[in-house]
């Protein structure tokens, strides 16, 4: 019974390619997030969606485009991959944070992206 799942777990690709990472949560949460963790373990939020609406969009290159087909899914598409995009990307979910629901965030296992 995986709460937050991501696919793929590992992704190795060439510079310039376009790739997607998928995320699904079965917790019934309203809010989902994408985080990037660099090689020094620094974790930074990229995006957050609440009921398919973008509510947090940090300073992220527009090559990164999140897509939320429904509130249980938040996919991350990356165009024209660069070497600096190599990192571990985590998806997370929580209850609706805008209605005082900033409670526990549940994280997926991560997707290790390596750009060659």
């Amino acid at each position, binding site marked *: 019974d995986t709460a937050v799942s991501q696919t793929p777990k590992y992704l190795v690709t060439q510079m310039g390619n376009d790739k997607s990472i998928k995320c699904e949560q079965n917790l019934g949460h309203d809010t989902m997030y994408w985080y990037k963790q660099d090689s020094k373990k620094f*974790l930074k939020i990229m995006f957050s969606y609440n009921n398919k609406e973008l509510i947090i969009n940090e300073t992220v290159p527009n090559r990164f485009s999140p897509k939320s087909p429904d509130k249980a899914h938040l996919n991350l598409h990356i165009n024209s991959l660069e070497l600096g995009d190599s990192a571990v990307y985590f998806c997370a979910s929580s209850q609706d944070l805008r209605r005082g629901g*900033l409670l526990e965030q549940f994280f*997926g296992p991560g997707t290790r992206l390596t750009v060659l």
Partner: protein
Amino acid sequence: AQSVTQPDIHITVSEGASLELRCNYSYGATPYLFWYVQSPGQGLQLLLKYFSGDTLVQGIKGFEAEFKRSQSSFNLRKPSVHWSDAAEYFCAVVPGTGGSYIPTFGRGTSLIVHP
């Protein structure tokens, strides 16, 4: 903007010893405070959180943390460490007031446990 400092990059303890991981934050008001643990190759798991009330909070796996407003600190403690506690620990802060719910994470502290 808020910031979170975890001054210790690595901490090494012997199994059975006590543990304290430090976290300091910089923010005008009292934010929401969290500690997460990340085991190797895994996502983050919430250990405990502080919103208001009792400044000593209990979490899972025998961890506790104490909020000290005067020191802007939220240190994580465990009286007796087990080998399975070896992991990366992250302190996180969310302002909460003024409609900002963007979390800021510390750089993490890597806990090494010797037998």
